Protein backbone atom coordinates (compact mmCIF):
# COMPACT_ATOMS: atom_id res chain seq x y z
CA UNK A 1 0.00 0.00 0.00
CA UNK A 2 1.34 3.36 -0.95
CA UNK A 3 0.12 6.89 -0.82
CA UNK A 4 0.03 7.89 -4.44
CA UNK A 5 -1.37 11.35 -3.94
CA UNK A 6 -1.28 13.77 -1.06
CA UNK A 7 -0.92 17.43 -0.23
CA UNK A 8 2.30 18.91 -1.46
CA UNK A 9 4.73 20.60 0.88
CA UNK A 10 5.23 23.10 -1.90
CA UNK A 11 2.11 24.88 -0.75
CA UNK A 12 1.25 26.11 2.70
CA UNK A 13 -1.67 24.75 4.66
CA UNK A 14 -3.69 27.88 4.05
CA UNK A 15 -7.06 27.37 2.40
CA UNK A 16 -7.23 29.34 -0.81
CA UNK A 17 -9.74 32.06 -1.49
CA UNK A 18 -10.26 30.83 -5.05
CA UNK A 19 -13.77 30.09 -6.19
CA UNK A 20 -14.94 26.48 -6.28
CA UNK A 21 -13.43 24.66 -9.24
CA UNK A 22 -11.08 27.45 -10.22
CA UNK A 23 -8.02 25.91 -11.82
CA UNK A 24 -5.70 28.47 -10.25
CA UNK A 25 -5.66 25.92 -7.42
CA UNK A 26 -4.52 23.12 -9.70
CA UNK A 27 -1.69 25.16 -11.16
CA UNK A 28 -0.57 26.27 -7.72
CA UNK A 29 -0.34 22.64 -6.74
CA UNK A 30 1.61 21.68 -9.84
CA UNK A 31 4.13 24.44 -9.19
CA UNK A 32 4.42 23.41 -5.56
CA UNK A 33 4.94 19.77 -6.49
CA UNK A 34 7.57 20.61 -9.07
CA UNK A 35 9.49 22.80 -6.62
CA UNK A 36 9.49 19.98 -4.13
CA UNK A 37 10.42 17.32 -6.65
CA UNK A 38 13.28 19.40 -8.00
CA UNK A 39 14.41 19.97 -4.43
CA UNK A 40 14.44 23.75 -4.82
CA UNK A 41 11.53 24.83 -2.64
CA UNK A 42 13.91 26.16 -0.05
CA UNK A 43 15.65 28.42 -2.45
CA UNK A 44 12.66 29.48 -4.49
CA UNK A 45 11.27 33.00 -4.64
CA UNK A 46 7.85 33.52 -6.12
CA UNK A 47 6.68 36.75 -7.66
CA UNK A 48 2.93 36.99 -7.64
CA UNK A 49 0.73 39.26 -9.68
CA UNK A 50 -2.24 41.52 -9.22
CA UNK A 51 -5.18 39.34 -10.11
CA UNK A 52 -6.94 36.51 -8.36
CA UNK A 53 -3.52 35.11 -7.47
CA UNK A 54 -2.55 38.27 -5.66
CA UNK A 55 -3.03 36.57 -2.31
CA UNK A 56 -0.82 33.66 -3.28
CA UNK A 57 1.83 34.86 -0.86
CA UNK A 58 -0.22 32.87 1.58
CA UNK A 59 -0.07 29.76 -0.59
CA UNK A 60 3.33 29.24 -2.16
CA UNK A 61 5.50 27.77 0.56
CA UNK A 62 8.56 29.84 -0.23
CA UNK A 63 9.64 33.45 -0.20
CA UNK A 64 7.24 35.63 -2.09
CA UNK A 65 7.13 39.12 -3.51
CA UNK A 66 3.83 40.66 -4.47
CA UNK A 67 4.37 42.74 -7.62
CA UNK A 68 2.47 45.67 -9.10
CA UNK A 69 -0.07 44.85 -11.80
CA UNK A 70 1.79 43.56 -14.82
CA UNK A 71 5.25 44.13 -13.41
CA UNK A 72 6.06 40.67 -12.09
CA UNK A 73 8.70 40.06 -14.79
CA UNK A 74 10.47 43.30 -13.85
CA UNK A 75 10.31 42.43 -10.17
CA UNK A 76 11.57 38.93 -10.91
CA UNK A 77 14.39 40.48 -12.92
CA UNK A 78 15.36 42.59 -9.95
CA UNK A 79 15.48 39.52 -7.74
CA UNK A 80 17.26 37.40 -10.31
CA UNK A 81 20.02 39.95 -10.79
CA UNK A 82 20.62 40.10 -7.05
CA UNK A 83 20.41 36.37 -6.38
CA UNK A 84 21.73 34.52 -9.40
CA UNK A 85 21.63 31.12 -7.73
CA UNK A 86 18.06 31.10 -6.48
CA UNK A 87 15.01 29.80 -8.26
CA UNK A 88 12.84 32.72 -9.29
CA UNK A 89 9.45 32.40 -10.87
CA UNK A 90 6.61 34.74 -11.72
CA UNK A 91 2.98 33.70 -11.70
CA UNK A 92 0.73 35.95 -13.78
CA UNK A 93 -2.78 36.19 -15.15
CA UNK A 94 -3.73 37.22 -18.65
CA UNK A 95 -4.79 40.72 -17.70
CA UNK A 96 -1.55 41.06 -15.83
CA UNK A 97 0.79 39.55 -18.40
CA UNK A 98 -0.94 40.00 -21.74
CA UNK A 99 -2.40 43.44 -21.20
CA UNK A 100 -0.87 45.90 -18.76
CA UNK A 101 2.36 43.93 -18.44
CA UNK A 102 3.09 43.38 -22.12
CA UNK A 103 6.30 45.41 -22.14
CA UNK A 104 7.68 43.70 -19.07
CA UNK A 105 7.10 40.14 -20.28
CA UNK A 106 8.41 40.89 -23.77
CA UNK A 107 11.57 42.40 -22.36
CA UNK A 108 12.15 39.73 -19.75
CA UNK A 109 12.04 37.29 -22.67
CA UNK A 110 14.17 39.64 -24.75
CA UNK A 111 16.87 39.74 -22.10
CA UNK A 112 16.39 36.01 -21.62
CA UNK A 113 16.10 36.56 -17.90
CA UNK A 114 16.79 33.24 -16.27
CA UNK A 115 13.34 33.01 -14.73
CA UNK A 116 10.29 30.83 -15.11
CA UNK A 117 6.93 32.36 -15.83
CA UNK A 118 3.64 30.60 -15.23
CA UNK A 119 1.02 32.37 -17.30
CA UNK A 120 -2.61 31.70 -16.42
CA UNK A 121 -4.75 32.33 -19.47
CA UNK A 122 -8.37 32.20 -18.34
CA UNK A 123 -9.58 34.51 -21.09
CA UNK A 124 -10.86 37.06 -18.61
CA UNK A 125 -10.10 39.41 -15.76
CA UNK A 126 -11.06 37.31 -12.77
CA UNK A 127 -10.43 39.41 -9.73
CA UNK A 128 -12.08 42.60 -10.90
CA UNK A 129 -15.27 40.89 -11.96
CA UNK A 130 -15.02 39.51 -15.43
CA UNK A 131 -13.86 42.19 -17.84
CA UNK A 132 -12.50 41.38 -21.26
CA UNK A 133 -8.87 40.30 -21.50
CA UNK A 134 -6.68 40.43 -24.63
CA UNK A 135 -7.15 36.65 -24.61
CA UNK A 136 -10.95 36.72 -24.45
CA UNK A 137 -12.33 34.73 -27.37
CA UNK A 138 -14.29 36.30 -30.19
CA UNK A 139 -17.94 36.39 -29.22
CA UNK A 140 -17.21 35.73 -25.56
CA UNK A 141 -19.37 37.89 -23.30
CA UNK A 142 -17.68 39.75 -20.51
CA UNK A 143 -18.69 42.74 -18.45
CA UNK A 144 -16.87 45.02 -20.87
CA UNK A 145 -17.85 43.15 -24.02
CA UNK A 146 -21.51 42.72 -23.11
CA UNK A 147 -22.49 41.62 -26.61
CA UNK A 148 -19.48 39.36 -26.97
CA UNK A 149 -15.99 40.31 -28.05
CA UNK A 150 -16.17 42.11 -31.36
CA UNK A 151 -12.91 41.69 -33.25
CA UNK A 152 -13.57 44.86 -35.24
CA UNK A 153 -13.45 46.92 -32.06
CA UNK A 154 -11.15 44.91 -29.84
CA UNK A 155 -9.15 42.80 -32.26
CA UNK A 156 -8.79 39.04 -32.32
CA UNK A 157 -7.42 37.40 -29.20
CA UNK A 158 -3.68 37.50 -28.81
CA UNK A 159 -1.65 34.31 -28.71
CA UNK A 160 1.02 35.21 -26.24
CA UNK A 161 3.05 32.01 -26.48
CA UNK A 162 3.37 32.33 -30.24
CA UNK A 163 4.30 35.98 -30.00
CA UNK A 164 6.94 35.47 -27.33
CA UNK A 165 8.38 32.48 -29.14
CA UNK A 166 9.54 34.94 -31.83
CA UNK A 167 11.87 36.62 -29.39
CA UNK A 168 15.39 35.20 -29.54
CA UNK A 169 15.75 35.17 -25.75
CA UNK A 170 12.59 33.15 -25.13
CA UNK A 171 14.34 29.83 -24.52
CA UNK A 172 11.39 27.72 -23.48
CA UNK A 173 7.77 28.41 -24.44
CA UNK A 174 4.93 25.93 -24.26
CA UNK A 175 1.17 25.99 -23.93
CA UNK A 176 -0.69 23.49 -21.75
CA UNK A 177 -4.22 23.19 -20.38
CA UNK A 178 -6.00 22.23 -17.19
CA UNK A 179 -9.17 20.78 -18.57
CA UNK A 180 -8.57 17.08 -17.98
CA UNK A 181 -6.34 14.78 -15.97
CA UNK A 182 -4.04 13.93 -18.89
CA UNK A 183 -3.61 17.59 -19.71
CA UNK A 184 -2.96 18.42 -16.07
CA UNK A 185 -0.34 15.70 -15.87
CA UNK A 186 1.25 16.97 -19.06
CA UNK A 187 1.14 20.49 -17.67
CA UNK A 188 3.15 19.35 -14.71
CA UNK A 189 5.83 17.82 -16.89
CA UNK A 190 6.04 21.03 -18.86
CA UNK A 191 6.23 23.20 -15.76
CA UNK A 192 9.01 20.98 -14.55
CA UNK A 193 10.79 21.38 -17.85
CA UNK A 194 10.42 25.15 -17.55
CA UNK A 195 12.07 25.11 -14.14
CA UNK A 196 14.78 22.79 -15.41
CA UNK A 197 15.49 25.36 -18.12
CA UNK A 198 16.13 27.88 -15.38
CA UNK A 199 18.21 25.47 -13.33
CA UNK A 200 20.36 24.80 -16.38
CA UNK A 201 20.87 28.53 -16.78
CA UNK A 202 19.25 28.42 -20.18
CA UNK A 203 17.23 31.57 -19.77
CA UNK A 204 13.66 32.66 -20.03
CA UNK A 205 10.98 29.98 -19.81
CA UNK A 206 7.25 30.48 -20.01
CA UNK A 207 4.36 28.06 -19.67
CA UNK A 208 0.97 29.31 -20.76
CA UNK A 209 -1.76 27.41 -18.93
CA UNK A 210 -5.27 27.47 -20.33
CA UNK A 211 -7.38 27.82 -17.21
CA UNK A 212 -10.93 28.35 -16.09
CA UNK A 213 -12.81 31.12 -14.40
CA UNK A 214 -16.14 29.48 -13.64
CA UNK A 215 -17.33 32.51 -11.70
CA UNK A 216 -16.91 35.10 -14.37
CA UNK A 217 -17.63 32.75 -17.24
CA UNK A 218 -20.94 32.04 -15.53
CA UNK A 219 -20.41 28.30 -15.86
CA UNK A 220 -20.38 25.41 -13.44
CA UNK A 221 -16.79 24.29 -12.79
CA UNK A 222 -17.19 21.08 -14.79
CA UNK A 223 -18.73 22.94 -17.70
CA UNK A 224 -15.87 25.40 -17.52
CA UNK A 225 -13.44 22.53 -18.17
CA UNK A 226 -15.46 21.59 -21.21
CA UNK A 227 -15.34 25.20 -22.40
CA UNK A 228 -11.58 25.14 -22.26
CA UNK A 229 -11.56 22.00 -24.35
CA UNK A 230 -14.21 23.08 -26.83
CA UNK A 231 -13.38 26.73 -27.27
CA UNK A 232 -10.00 27.65 -25.92
CA UNK A 233 -7.81 24.79 -27.09
CA UNK A 234 -8.95 25.09 -30.71
CA UNK A 235 -7.87 28.73 -30.75
CA UNK A 236 -4.88 28.31 -28.48
CA UNK A 237 -3.21 25.13 -29.67
CA UNK A 238 -1.32 23.18 -27.04
CA UNK A 239 2.27 22.33 -27.58
CA UNK A 240 5.86 23.38 -27.38
CA UNK A 241 7.05 26.39 -29.31
CA UNK A 242 10.58 26.75 -28.00
CA UNK A 243 12.79 24.40 -26.06
CA UNK A 244 16.56 24.64 -25.62
CA UNK A 245 16.66 20.87 -26.12
CA UNK A 246 14.99 21.09 -29.47
CA UNK A 247 16.86 24.22 -30.40
CA UNK A 248 20.11 22.60 -29.46
CA UNK A 249 19.22 19.57 -31.52
CA UNK A 250 18.36 21.81 -34.43
CA UNK A 251 21.73 23.50 -34.06
CA UNK A 252 23.49 20.17 -33.77
CA UNK A 253 23.55 19.79 -30.03
CA UNK A 254 25.84 22.65 -29.15
CA UNK A 255 24.07 23.46 -25.89
CA UNK A 256 26.30 22.26 -23.07
CA UNK A 257 23.80 20.35 -20.98
CA UNK A 258 22.23 18.02 -23.49
Amino acid sequence: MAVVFQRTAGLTDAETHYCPGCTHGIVHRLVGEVLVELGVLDRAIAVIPVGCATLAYDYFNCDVQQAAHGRAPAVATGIRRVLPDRVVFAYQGDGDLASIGTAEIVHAAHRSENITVIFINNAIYGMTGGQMAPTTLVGQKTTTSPLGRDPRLAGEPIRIAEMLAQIPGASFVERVACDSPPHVKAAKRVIRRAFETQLAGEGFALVEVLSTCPTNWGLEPVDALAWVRDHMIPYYPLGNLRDPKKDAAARGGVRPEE
Partner: protein
Amino acid sequence: MARVLMKGNEAVGAAAIAAGCRHYFGYPITPQSELLEYMSVHLPKVGGVFLQSESEVAAINMCYGAAGAGARVMTGSSSPGIALMQEGISYLAGAELPSVIVNIVRGGPGLGGIQPAQSDYHQSTRGGGDGDYKLLVYAPSTVQEMAELVALAFDKADEYRNPVMIVGDGMLGQIMEPVEIVERPPDPALPPKTWATTGTRDHPGSRSIINSLFLKPEVLEHHILDLFAKYERMREREVLVEEYRVEDADLVVVAYGTTARIVKSAIAALAAEGVRVGLIRPITLFPFPAESLRRLPDRVANLLVVEMSMGQMIDDVRIANEGRRTVHFLGRTGGMIPLPQVIADTVRHILAEHHAGDVPHVSVGDEKGGR
Protein backbone atom coordinates in the same frame (compact mmCIF):
# COMPACT_ATOMS: atom_id res chain seq x y z
CA MET B 1 40.37 59.27 -2.66
CA ALA B 2 41.54 62.69 -3.80
CA ARG B 3 39.34 65.44 -5.09
CA VAL B 4 38.52 64.84 -8.73
CA LEU B 5 36.51 66.78 -11.23
CA MET B 6 33.19 65.07 -11.81
CA LYS B 7 29.80 65.79 -13.21
CA GLY B 8 27.07 65.70 -10.61
CA ASN B 9 25.48 62.75 -12.36
CA GLU B 10 28.76 60.84 -12.30
CA ALA B 11 29.38 61.70 -8.67
CA VAL B 12 26.00 60.20 -7.79
CA GLY B 13 27.10 56.98 -9.41
CA ALA B 14 30.54 56.98 -7.82
CA ALA B 15 29.13 57.74 -4.39
CA ALA B 16 26.53 55.01 -4.73
CA ILE B 17 29.16 52.45 -5.61
CA ALA B 18 31.30 53.65 -2.71
CA ALA B 19 28.28 53.15 -0.48
CA GLY B 20 27.93 49.54 -1.50
CA CYS B 21 25.30 49.91 -4.20
CA ARG B 22 25.78 47.05 -6.63
CA HIS B 23 22.56 47.20 -8.61
CA TYR B 24 21.34 49.93 -10.88
CA PHE B 25 18.26 49.80 -13.07
CA GLY B 26 17.41 52.75 -15.23
CA TYR B 27 16.36 54.25 -18.52
CA PRO B 28 18.04 57.07 -20.43
CA ILE B 29 16.79 60.61 -20.13
CA THR B 30 18.39 64.01 -20.38
CA PRO B 31 19.77 65.54 -18.13
CA GLN B 32 20.34 62.38 -16.12
CA SER B 33 21.82 59.93 -18.64
CA GLU B 34 25.42 60.34 -17.46
CA LEU B 35 24.45 58.56 -14.25
CA LEU B 36 23.15 55.63 -16.26
CA GLU B 37 26.24 55.66 -18.45
CA TYR B 38 28.55 55.90 -15.46
CA MET B 39 26.93 52.89 -13.91
CA SER B 40 27.16 50.91 -17.13
CA VAL B 41 30.91 51.44 -17.11
CA HIS B 42 31.70 51.16 -13.43
CA LEU B 43 29.28 48.70 -11.85
CA PRO B 44 30.56 45.70 -13.80
CA LYS B 45 34.09 46.57 -12.63
CA VAL B 46 33.10 45.97 -9.03
CA GLY B 47 31.05 42.89 -9.77
CA GLY B 48 27.81 44.82 -9.74
CA VAL B 49 24.89 44.70 -12.12
CA PHE B 50 23.92 47.47 -14.46
CA LEU B 51 20.74 46.87 -16.38
CA GLN B 52 19.10 49.25 -18.78
CA SER B 53 15.42 48.57 -18.30
CA GLU B 54 12.80 48.79 -21.01
CA SER B 55 11.20 51.79 -19.29
CA GLU B 56 11.07 53.75 -16.08
CA VAL B 57 8.10 51.65 -15.02
CA ALA B 58 10.19 48.53 -15.36
CA ALA B 59 13.18 50.21 -13.68
CA ILE B 60 11.33 51.08 -10.52
CA ASN B 61 9.81 47.62 -10.35
CA MET B 62 13.22 46.03 -10.82
CA CYS B 63 14.33 48.13 -7.89
CA TYR B 64 11.40 46.73 -5.97
CA GLY B 65 12.49 43.17 -6.71
CA ALA B 66 16.14 43.84 -5.97
CA ALA B 67 15.43 45.80 -2.79
CA GLY B 68 13.08 43.05 -1.67
CA ALA B 69 15.88 40.59 -2.25
CA GLY B 70 18.05 42.59 0.12
CA ALA B 71 20.26 44.56 -2.23
CA ARG B 72 21.38 48.17 -2.09
CA VAL B 73 19.74 49.37 -5.24
CA MET B 74 19.32 52.63 -7.08
CA THR B 75 17.47 54.06 -10.01
CA GLY B 76 17.47 57.50 -11.49
CA SER B 77 15.62 59.51 -14.03
CA SER B 78 14.37 62.98 -14.76
CA SER B 79 10.93 64.48 -14.36
CA PRO B 80 8.71 62.71 -16.93
CA GLY B 81 10.42 59.43 -16.14
CA ILE B 82 9.88 59.96 -12.43
CA ALA B 83 6.23 60.70 -13.15
CA LEU B 84 6.00 57.27 -14.74
CA MET B 85 7.47 55.71 -11.62
CA GLN B 86 4.82 57.02 -9.26
CA GLU B 87 2.91 53.80 -8.91
CA GLY B 88 6.11 51.89 -8.32
CA ILE B 89 7.36 54.40 -5.77
CA SER B 90 4.10 54.08 -3.89
CA TYR B 91 4.59 50.31 -3.90
CA LEU B 92 8.12 50.67 -2.55
CA ALA B 93 6.81 52.85 0.26
CA GLY B 94 3.91 50.50 0.93
CA ALA B 95 6.10 47.42 1.02
CA GLU B 96 8.76 49.32 2.98
CA LEU B 97 11.60 48.63 0.61
CA PRO B 98 14.83 50.56 0.98
CA SER B 99 15.97 52.05 -2.31
CA VAL B 100 17.43 55.25 -3.63
CA ILE B 101 15.74 57.17 -6.42
CA VAL B 102 17.48 60.07 -8.11
CA ASN B 103 15.49 62.77 -9.87
CA ILE B 104 17.57 65.19 -11.92
CA VAL B 105 14.71 67.58 -12.43
CA ARG B 106 13.95 69.30 -15.74
CA GLY B 107 11.13 71.60 -16.74
CA GLY B 108 7.62 70.28 -17.25
CA PRO B 109 4.73 69.81 -17.60
CA GLY B 110 4.56 67.03 -20.16
CA LEU B 111 7.64 66.64 -22.28
CA GLY B 112 8.46 70.23 -21.24
CA GLY B 113 12.11 70.99 -21.72
CA ILE B 114 15.44 69.56 -20.66
CA GLN B 115 16.86 72.51 -18.72
CA PRO B 116 17.10 72.69 -14.91
CA ALA B 117 13.98 73.10 -12.80
CA GLN B 118 12.63 72.49 -9.31
CA SER B 119 9.06 71.91 -10.32
CA ASP B 120 8.80 68.36 -8.98
CA TYR B 121 8.89 69.46 -5.34
CA HIS B 122 5.27 68.56 -4.68
CA GLN B 123 5.66 65.22 -6.39
CA SER B 124 8.72 64.37 -4.29
CA THR B 125 7.45 65.54 -0.92
CA ARG B 126 3.77 64.69 -1.12
CA GLY B 127 3.72 61.65 -3.28
CA GLY B 128 2.50 61.55 -6.82
CA GLY B 129 1.63 57.94 -6.22
CA ASP B 130 -1.50 56.69 -4.55
CA GLY B 131 -2.16 56.71 -0.86
CA ASP B 132 -0.63 58.04 2.32
CA TYR B 133 3.15 57.75 2.26
CA LYS B 134 6.32 59.76 2.40
CA LEU B 135 9.78 59.56 0.97
CA LEU B 136 12.84 60.87 2.71
CA VAL B 137 13.92 63.57 0.26
CA TYR B 138 17.42 65.05 0.04
CA ALA B 139 18.14 68.15 -2.00
CA PRO B 140 21.90 68.71 -2.33
CA SER B 141 23.28 71.95 -3.63
CA THR B 142 26.84 71.05 -4.60
CA VAL B 143 28.32 68.00 -6.24
CA GLN B 144 30.21 67.18 -3.06
CA GLU B 145 27.08 67.40 -0.98
CA MET B 146 25.22 65.29 -3.51
CA ALA B 147 27.84 62.57 -3.21
CA GLU B 148 27.60 62.65 0.57
CA LEU B 149 23.84 62.61 0.62
CA VAL B 150 23.73 59.68 -1.77
CA ALA B 151 25.86 57.71 0.65
CA LEU B 152 23.69 58.79 3.54
CA ALA B 153 20.59 57.94 1.55
CA PHE B 154 21.53 54.29 1.35
CA ASP B 155 21.99 54.04 5.08
CA LYS B 156 18.79 55.90 5.80
CA ALA B 157 16.87 53.82 3.31
CA ASP B 158 18.02 50.71 5.12
CA GLU B 159 17.50 52.20 8.55
CA TYR B 160 13.91 53.21 7.88
CA ARG B 161 13.10 50.58 5.27
CA ASN B 162 11.88 53.38 3.08
CA PRO B 163 12.61 54.72 -0.39
CA VAL B 164 14.80 57.81 -0.32
CA MET B 165 14.82 60.37 -3.08
CA ILE B 166 17.68 62.59 -4.16
CA VAL B 167 16.38 65.67 -5.90
CA GLY B 168 18.85 67.59 -7.99
CA ASP B 169 18.03 69.94 -10.79
CA GLY B 170 19.53 69.58 -14.25
CA MET B 171 22.27 72.03 -13.33
CA LEU B 172 23.48 69.86 -10.51
CA GLY B 173 23.48 66.81 -12.76
CA GLN B 174 25.53 68.52 -15.46
CA ILE B 175 27.90 70.69 -13.49
CA MET B 176 31.47 69.55 -12.84
CA GLU B 177 33.06 70.37 -9.52
CA PRO B 178 35.87 68.86 -7.51
CA VAL B 179 34.52 66.08 -5.39
CA GLU B 180 35.96 63.59 -3.00
CA ILE B 181 34.30 60.22 -3.07
CA VAL B 182 34.73 58.35 0.17
CA GLU B 183 34.29 54.62 0.53
CA ARG B 184 31.36 54.29 2.85
CA PRO B 185 30.22 50.74 3.37
CA PRO B 186 26.83 50.13 4.97
CA ASP B 187 26.65 51.34 8.55
CA PRO B 188 27.51 48.24 10.64
CA ALA B 189 24.86 49.28 13.14
CA LEU B 190 22.14 48.58 10.61
CA PRO B 191 20.10 45.50 11.45
CA PRO B 192 20.37 42.50 9.11
CA LYS B 193 17.67 42.37 6.46
CA THR B 194 15.89 39.35 7.83
CA TRP B 195 12.72 40.45 6.09
CA ALA B 196 14.26 40.12 2.62
CA THR B 197 13.22 37.38 0.23
CA THR B 198 16.63 35.89 -0.18
CA GLY B 199 15.40 32.40 -0.82
CA THR B 200 17.22 31.19 2.26
CA ARG B 201 15.04 30.11 5.14
CA ASP B 202 16.35 30.96 8.58
CA HIS B 203 14.57 27.95 9.90
CA PRO B 204 12.40 25.44 8.04
CA GLY B 205 9.06 26.92 7.21
CA SER B 206 10.08 30.50 7.75
CA ARG B 207 9.27 32.56 4.74
CA SER B 208 9.74 36.20 3.84
CA ILE B 209 6.95 38.07 2.16
CA ILE B 210 7.17 41.44 0.46
CA ASN B 211 3.76 42.93 0.06
CA SER B 212 1.73 46.12 0.07
CA LEU B 213 -1.74 44.58 -0.11
CA PHE B 214 -3.95 44.58 2.94
CA LEU B 215 -7.51 43.86 1.95
CA LYS B 216 -8.87 44.43 5.44
CA PRO B 217 -9.10 48.16 6.06
CA GLU B 218 -8.31 47.87 9.75
CA VAL B 219 -5.10 46.03 8.89
CA LEU B 220 -4.19 48.51 6.19
CA GLU B 221 -4.85 51.41 8.54
CA HIS B 222 -2.65 49.80 11.12
CA HIS B 223 0.08 49.39 8.54
CA ILE B 224 -0.21 53.05 7.54
CA LEU B 225 -0.09 54.15 11.17
CA ASP B 226 3.15 52.21 11.49
CA LEU B 227 4.47 53.94 8.39
CA PHE B 228 3.56 57.32 9.81
CA ALA B 229 5.18 56.54 13.12
CA LYS B 230 8.29 56.00 11.04
CA TYR B 231 7.81 59.29 9.21
CA GLU B 232 7.36 60.97 12.56
CA ARG B 233 10.71 59.56 13.64
CA MET B 234 12.19 61.02 10.48
CA ARG B 235 10.66 64.39 11.36
CA GLU B 236 12.34 64.19 14.74
CA ARG B 237 15.72 62.93 13.69
CA GLU B 238 16.44 63.44 10.05
CA VAL B 239 15.93 67.13 9.36
CA LEU B 240 18.96 68.64 7.65
CA VAL B 241 19.14 72.32 6.99
CA GLU B 242 21.72 74.98 6.39
CA GLU B 243 21.06 78.22 8.22
CA TYR B 244 23.28 80.85 6.67
CA ARG B 245 23.68 84.29 8.14
CA VAL B 246 20.24 84.22 9.71
CA GLU B 247 21.28 85.58 13.12
CA ASP B 248 21.41 89.22 12.17
CA ALA B 249 19.36 89.11 9.00
CA ASP B 250 16.80 91.72 8.02
CA LEU B 251 15.21 89.32 5.62
CA VAL B 252 15.55 85.59 5.19
CA VAL B 253 15.48 83.77 1.89
CA VAL B 254 14.33 80.18 1.70
CA ALA B 255 15.77 78.24 -1.20
CA TYR B 256 17.20 74.79 -1.88
CA GLY B 257 19.47 73.06 -4.36
CA THR B 258 21.42 75.11 -6.88
CA THR B 259 18.93 77.94 -6.40
CA ALA B 260 20.31 78.34 -2.90
CA ARG B 261 23.81 78.78 -4.31
CA ILE B 262 22.61 81.52 -6.56
CA VAL B 263 20.92 83.11 -3.57
CA LYS B 264 24.25 83.04 -1.75
CA SER B 265 25.82 85.02 -4.55
CA ALA B 266 23.03 87.54 -4.17
CA ILE B 267 23.54 87.62 -0.42
CA ALA B 268 27.22 88.37 -0.91
CA ALA B 269 26.41 91.22 -3.25
CA LEU B 270 23.84 92.62 -0.81
CA ALA B 271 26.21 92.26 2.11
CA ALA B 272 28.64 94.44 0.23
CA GLU B 273 25.93 97.11 0.34
CA GLY B 274 25.28 96.50 4.02
CA VAL B 275 21.99 94.70 3.45
CA ARG B 276 21.85 91.72 5.79
CA VAL B 277 20.10 88.77 4.27
CA GLY B 278 20.01 85.25 5.63
CA LEU B 279 19.28 81.96 3.95
CA ILE B 280 17.47 78.90 5.15
CA ARG B 281 18.41 76.07 2.86
CA PRO B 282 16.39 72.92 3.42
CA ILE B 283 18.65 69.96 2.74
CA THR B 284 15.87 67.54 3.54
CA LEU B 285 12.69 68.54 1.70
CA PHE B 286 10.85 65.90 3.67
CA PRO B 287 11.15 66.22 6.61
CA PHE B 288 10.95 69.96 5.99
CA PRO B 289 12.96 72.10 8.43
CA ALA B 290 9.90 73.92 9.75
CA GLU B 291 11.61 74.60 13.07
CA SER B 292 14.27 76.73 11.43
CA LEU B 293 11.57 79.01 10.15
CA ARG B 294 9.69 79.09 13.44
CA ARG B 295 12.66 80.10 15.54
CA LEU B 296 13.88 82.93 13.34
CA PRO B 297 14.64 86.15 15.23
CA ASP B 298 11.62 88.42 15.62
CA ARG B 299 13.20 91.16 13.58
CA VAL B 300 12.77 89.11 10.45
CA ALA B 301 9.48 90.40 9.10
CA ASN B 302 9.86 89.12 5.57
CA LEU B 303 10.63 85.79 4.03
CA LEU B 304 11.49 85.43 0.39
CA VAL B 305 11.06 82.02 -1.18
CA VAL B 306 13.10 81.52 -4.34
CA GLU B 307 12.42 78.49 -6.48
CA MET B 308 12.94 77.32 -10.00
CA SER B 309 9.21 76.66 -10.22
CA MET B 310 5.94 78.54 -9.99
CA GLY B 311 6.02 78.11 -6.23
CA GLN B 312 5.89 74.67 -4.65
CA MET B 313 8.12 74.65 -1.58
CA ILE B 314 6.34 77.85 -0.64
CA ASP B 315 3.49 75.64 0.59
CA ASP B 316 5.73 74.17 3.25
CA VAL B 317 7.09 77.60 4.11
CA ARG B 318 3.55 78.92 4.55
CA ILE B 319 2.53 75.95 6.65
CA ALA B 320 5.53 76.40 8.92
CA ASN B 321 5.20 80.17 8.97
CA GLU B 322 1.55 80.17 10.12
CA GLY B 323 1.06 83.77 9.11
CA ARG B 324 3.85 85.12 11.33
CA ARG B 325 5.90 86.78 8.62
CA THR B 326 5.11 88.02 5.18
CA VAL B 327 6.05 85.42 2.62
CA HIS B 328 7.25 86.71 -0.73
CA PHE B 329 8.00 84.67 -3.75
CA LEU B 330 10.42 84.83 -6.63
CA GLY B 331 10.23 82.06 -9.16
CA ARG B 332 11.61 81.19 -12.54
CA THR B 333 10.45 78.10 -14.32
CA GLY B 334 10.69 75.97 -17.42
CA GLY B 335 14.47 75.85 -17.32
CA MET B 336 15.04 79.53 -16.57
CA ILE B 337 17.47 80.22 -13.77
CA PRO B 338 16.93 83.13 -11.40
CA LEU B 339 20.03 85.32 -11.45
CA PRO B 340 21.74 86.79 -8.39
CA GLN B 341 21.11 90.27 -9.72
CA VAL B 342 17.36 89.66 -9.86
CA ILE B 343 17.28 88.08 -6.44
CA ALA B 344 19.17 91.02 -5.00
CA ASP B 345 16.80 93.46 -6.67
CA THR B 346 13.82 91.63 -5.26
CA VAL B 347 15.29 91.74 -1.77
CA ARG B 348 16.00 95.47 -2.05
CA HIS B 349 12.49 96.04 -3.27
CA ILE B 350 10.92 94.09 -0.42
CA LEU B 351 12.98 95.79 2.23
CA ALA B 352 12.16 99.19 0.78
CA GLU B 353 8.45 98.64 0.53
CA HIS B 354 7.19 95.88 2.72
CA HIS B 355 6.69 95.20 6.35
CA ALA B 356 5.07 92.27 8.07
CA GLY B 357 1.45 91.90 7.10
CA ASP B 358 1.75 93.53 3.71
CA VAL B 359 0.67 91.83 0.57
CA PRO B 360 3.45 89.52 -0.49
CA HIS B 361 5.66 90.34 -3.38
CA VAL B 362 5.22 87.80 -6.10
CA SER B 363 7.49 87.90 -9.05
CA VAL B 364 7.29 84.94 -11.27
CA GLY B 365 8.99 84.45 -14.53
CA ASP B 366 9.87 88.03 -15.16
CA GLU B 367 10.83 88.47 -18.77
CA LYS B 368 14.29 89.75 -18.03
CA GLY B 369 16.94 88.55 -15.72
CA GLY B 370 16.71 84.82 -16.06
CA ARG B 371 18.98 82.51 -17.90
